[in-house]
């Protein structure tokens, strides 16, 4: 295994995040704080509790997921798209490095950044609402799995995208609506029965539900199902990336 290559790709990607620290870390923290102010304090003050949890605290896992998903995708997609766009990808393609090593470097760095953002948002939430995490180990497990899965998904988008518009297309048109409609700000049980059934086709519901369970032991679907869905999504992403590298899709002619 080319450990040196993994290390430099990872380091280079992490350096990029710290050089643009305002964009990488401050921006998601500020936008999440605004959600807390608007939904948690202003509107949340008029909502008593949701399934026994104060509304301000109830939305914390959903907001973390919103930031994690969008950040994982944008970090990873940009990380691989930009060298493709500038042409510097030639160096990675001509290096003695396997696709697994490329993945560990790029996706590992994107997932690490998202994980750090998740922790920062959690700390920020602590300023607005009192938090108690019922299952910290499971919370971290969900956090890590989500960061890795969606960084992989972002990596796929970065490989697929041929211009900046395509790079933004999936996150804006697919991911954001799925997260908003996936129970970030409400419990699925608050919806009419017909919409509850429709919502179950949204994969993000399982993520948020499982993650929320690790905080409050309150879930829309069973934890086992949530975990299985995350693992299935991870497996699908890995298969797609494997196929892309094997065929050289949009990388090698």
């Amino acid at each position: 295994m080319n450990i040196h290559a993994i290390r430099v790709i990872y380091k280079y990607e992490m350096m990029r995040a710290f050089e643009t620290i305002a964009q990488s870390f401050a921006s998601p923290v500020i936008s999440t704080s605004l959600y807390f102010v608007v939904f948690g304090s202003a509107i949340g003050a008029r909502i008593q509790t949701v399934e026994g949890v104060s509304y301000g605290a109830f939305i914390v896992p959903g907001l973390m997921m919103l930031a994690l998903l969008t950040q994982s995708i944008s970090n990873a997609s940009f990380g691989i798209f930009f060298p493709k766009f500038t042409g510097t990808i030639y160096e990675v393609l001509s290096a003695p490095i396997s696709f697994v090593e490329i993945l560990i470097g790029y996706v590992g760095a994107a997932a690490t950044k998202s994980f750090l953002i998740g922790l920062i948002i959690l700390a920020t939430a602590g300023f607005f609402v009192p938090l108690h995490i019922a299952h910290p180990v499971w919370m971290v497990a969900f956090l890590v799995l989500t960061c890795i899965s969606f960084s992989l998904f972002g990596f796929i988008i970065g490989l697929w995208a041929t211009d900046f518009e395509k790079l933004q297309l999936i996150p804006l048109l697919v991911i954001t609506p799925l997260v908003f409609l996936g129970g970030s700000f409400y419990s699925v049980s608050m919806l009419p029965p017909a919409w509850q059934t429709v919502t179950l086709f949204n994969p993000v519901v399982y993520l948020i539900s499982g993650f929320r369970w690790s905080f409050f032991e309150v879930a829309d679907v069973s934890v086992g199902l949530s975990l299985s869905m995350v693992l299935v999504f991870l497996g699908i992403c890995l298969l797609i990336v494997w196929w892309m590298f094997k065929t050289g899709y949009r990388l090698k002619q």
Partner: protein
Amino acid sequence: MGAMQPIVSISNLSKTYASGYQALKNVNLEIRRGEILALLGPNGAGKTTLISIICGIVNASTGTVKVDEYDIVRDYRITRSLIGLVPQELTLGAFEKVWDTLCFSRGLFGKKHDANYLEQLLKDLSLWDKKDSILMALSGGMKRRVLIGKALAHEPVVLFLDEPTAGVDVELRKDMWSLVQRLRESGVTIILTTHYIEEAEAIADRVGVINKGELLLLDDKQALMHKLGKRQLHIELASALSELPAALTPWALELSTDGCQLSFTYDPHKSHTGIDPLLQAIRDAGLSIKDVNTKQTSLEEIFVSLVKTNS
């Protein structure tokens, strides 16, 4: 590995892109250890495709390539660590520092960080004082040198330079040539593609000519010029001619537009070049000779004539 073994062996290599365009047609080529090989060819000849396949950026359709006896597909980790590539375009990041980008390249190719080696490399490339500069602040010539530095950061034994002096001024081109010579002296095999015949003429040991995906010719530079090179005898006349005298027509002379110069092409390797009877015939025709000089056909003229024949 014997010293006689070629460092790169290319057998029956073909490449057809998804669009149906056939960029390489059954290319066979052996590159000797320690040589400088210049690949000449017009745009779209297949030079970059050939290099890209050897380096692992493009997949071959058929054929095999071995580097130091290792297959580039099966043993890609070994072959790629032996190769350095300087691409044609100035493909560099924008905001990284020169030093960081070299460290990145060295690590990417599986080598442990070595500050002393990289420092010496930057000094050899006259970039040491720019080590903390960000890449986009560098001039075009400096960026080209950074690309060479990146390609050499992992101490390769084979270096591919894809049109290294395209768009580079004369002074920098000469610097580049001396750098290439120094690299060769250090044992690195160098393959460069170029449009500039004078480049091949100045630094290459062997010259290959590629056109329309085919390797038309490969030979030692001197042997090539010896085999295909003609000489021209230029005779400057004391007074201008309006047309060639009939007595001189058997020599297939060319008369310059101002009528003051006659040119005679001959093969210098023949025992009878025809110069002596020509000069006699000129005198017999009553023409007065002012000056005489001869000129060897340049590689450029050989190249143009080969490519024309192939077209």
